[in-house]
């Protein structure tokens, strides 16, 4: 008897879990560009960064098109490339950064976008299109998803002097309380900027100078982090962190004692673009998802959820001034003027990797 009650309860529980599958309400405000989605069906394998989309939007997309979305997360461009290169890779769509897209185009991993299937691309800010042309001429293969800068997030209760230079990261006063970013291009890149060099330099001496500068810094830093830096900064554990603008905005939202700046020596402006893989199986659904995410109302909802800056002009018009008037979310032109894009370095990246090995083994 007891056994049957147990089984019955288990069945009820499983059924109630199944019943919990969310449906998203659709009304006239859901889409800015009209409900233009038709049934497509099949599956779509999406590879994206962690916490980088409003999950409700994926459910809504599934509802609208009947496509089953398999959403997989990664933590770095390098990890993404590794996943895509493996023989059984079956991803349809992914969201790599600028210099990686350059490399993927060079290695013939992507397929050209069919713009007739992405009418909502008209919503993207022409200024952003122009910048992304720097790594994907004519946006043949990619459309911008989110963008931002790299800068310093710091705790105003712990840092006394005004912060305007990367030099603060070499200040003995903050020993053990400095987070650096766990990525060779970002960390060596900002050091190159601090030393007055180009972030994409192919000069071995300049890379060596940056390497020595970082080795000199090694005893001062807490470590090299990625996503875990957010919690640590929000809790007020550490004083300074090299971080992406979107993460910084999110942290400041949780802890108002934090501030973010883009140092005067200049920094990196980056774009994460949506691309369709050459061997994509559901090309129709992949285009539909890109079109869907470029709808003004959808893009606005997405950026409100993840706090990263949207390149979508229609979305910007819908956003609360809390976002649009924030200089981290929407940096003024003079900040953008001192930032540059990362470019694919080809084989020269090995010089960076070797330098990175030296730095991290200290």
């Amino acid at each position: 008897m007891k056994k049957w009650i147990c089984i019955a309860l288990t069945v009820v529980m499983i059924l109630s879990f199944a019943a919990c599958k969310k449906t998203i309400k659709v009304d006239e405000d859901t889409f800015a560009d009209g409900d233009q989605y038709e049934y497509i069906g099949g599956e779509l394998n999406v590879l994206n960064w962690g916490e980088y989309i409003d999950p409700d939007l994926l459910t809504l997309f599934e509802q609208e098109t009947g496509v089953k979305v398999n959403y997989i997360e990664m933590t770095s461009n390098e990890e993404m490339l590794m996943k895509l290169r493996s023989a059984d890779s079956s991803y349809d769509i992914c969201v790599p950064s600028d210099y990686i897209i350059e490399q993927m185009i060079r290695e013939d991993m992507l397929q050209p976008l069919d713009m007739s299937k992405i009418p909502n691309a008209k919503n993207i800010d022409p200024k952003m299109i122009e910048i992304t042309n720097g790594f994907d001429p004519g946006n043949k293969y990619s459309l911008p998803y989110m963008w931002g800068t790299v800068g310093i997030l710091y705790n105003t209760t712990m840092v006394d002097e005004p912060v305007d230079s990367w030099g603060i990261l070499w200040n003995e006063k903050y020993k053990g309380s400095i987070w650096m970013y766990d990525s060779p291009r970002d960390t060596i890149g900002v050091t190159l900027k601090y030393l007055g060099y180009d972030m994409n330099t192919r000069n071995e001496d300049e890379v060596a100078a940056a390497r020595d500068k970082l080795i000199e810094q090694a005893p001062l830093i807490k470590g090299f982090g990625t996503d875990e830096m957010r919690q640590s900064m929000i809790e007020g554990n550490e004083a300074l962190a090299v971080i992406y603008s979107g993460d910084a905005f999110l942290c400041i939202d949780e802890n108002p004692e934090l501030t973010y700046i883009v140092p005067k020596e200049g920094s990196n402006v980056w774009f994460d673009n949506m691309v369709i893989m050459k061997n994509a199986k559901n090309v129709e659904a992949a285009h539909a998802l890109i079109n869907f995410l470029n709808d003004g109302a959808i893009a606005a909802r997405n950026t409100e959820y993840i706090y990263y800056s949207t390149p979508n002009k229609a979305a910007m018009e819908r956003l609360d001034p809390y976002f649009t008037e924030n200089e981290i979310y929407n940096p003024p032109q003079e900040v953008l003027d001192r930032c540059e894009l990362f470019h694919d370095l080809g084989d020269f990246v090995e010089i960076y990797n070797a330098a990175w090995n030296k730095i991290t083994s200290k």
Partner: protein
Amino acid sequence: MKRKYFAYPYIVWMILFIAVPMIFIFYYAFNVDGRWTTERFVQTIANGDYWIVLLKSVEIAFITTAICLLLAYPIAYILSNMKKSVAAFISVLFFVPMWMNFVLRTYAWYAILEFAFPKLLGVKLLTNSTSNTIAVLVVMVYDFLPFMVLPLYNTLSKLDRSLLEASRDLGANGVTTFFRVVLPLSVPGIVSGITMVFIPAITAFTVTAMIGHGKPNLYGNVIEKQFKSTSGGFATGSTLAIILLICVMVSTLIMNHFDKDKEGGSIL
């Protein structure tokens, strides 16, 4: 004859998950962009940076193993002298944390060291290489201690009690009995415990990545970074993996040399 068939799934398993990956490692080490060459292999071996990291890894693994042995021996000894039912209960307690995922346990340690300590005691623990190294050692000892306790407990509980009585009858005191009788007889357990701790410790990379954030950087982390790097890291990573493999094999052979009777259940 018929019984041989039962071994086939195991042979298939070994080929798929041991032999094939090995072939891949060697393939990637000597085949760069579809061309056979030893250039990368030699380049990697000649790079002193990797050897410094390897030494550091050996050092950390050695210290971890030593601490585990010093802690585990008394525990196993006390357990083996207890009533069977009590000992069984306590060894289950040792096992319970191991049912939980390794990464989760390490993450829990990160939360304790990074957030709980500063909040409760106002002390920041993870601030420099030295403190991070100590933290990494603590977590590694925590993670690997059961692997040392269990083989030791097995060997010690199988010890013939009449030998101890004989030793006492012949006039040896407790200390002499321990060093002349118990310790030599538990060598197989010690050897297998050392093997089971040293090898995972030397290849460890999750603990350092999650607790130390690259400080200290161990050999496992370097290999991981190579495979994740955007260009041509496969050759370097595979070469480093081969070197590590050789280290593991050498240490296993040394250990087997001490455990001639294979009582502790050897690996190679």
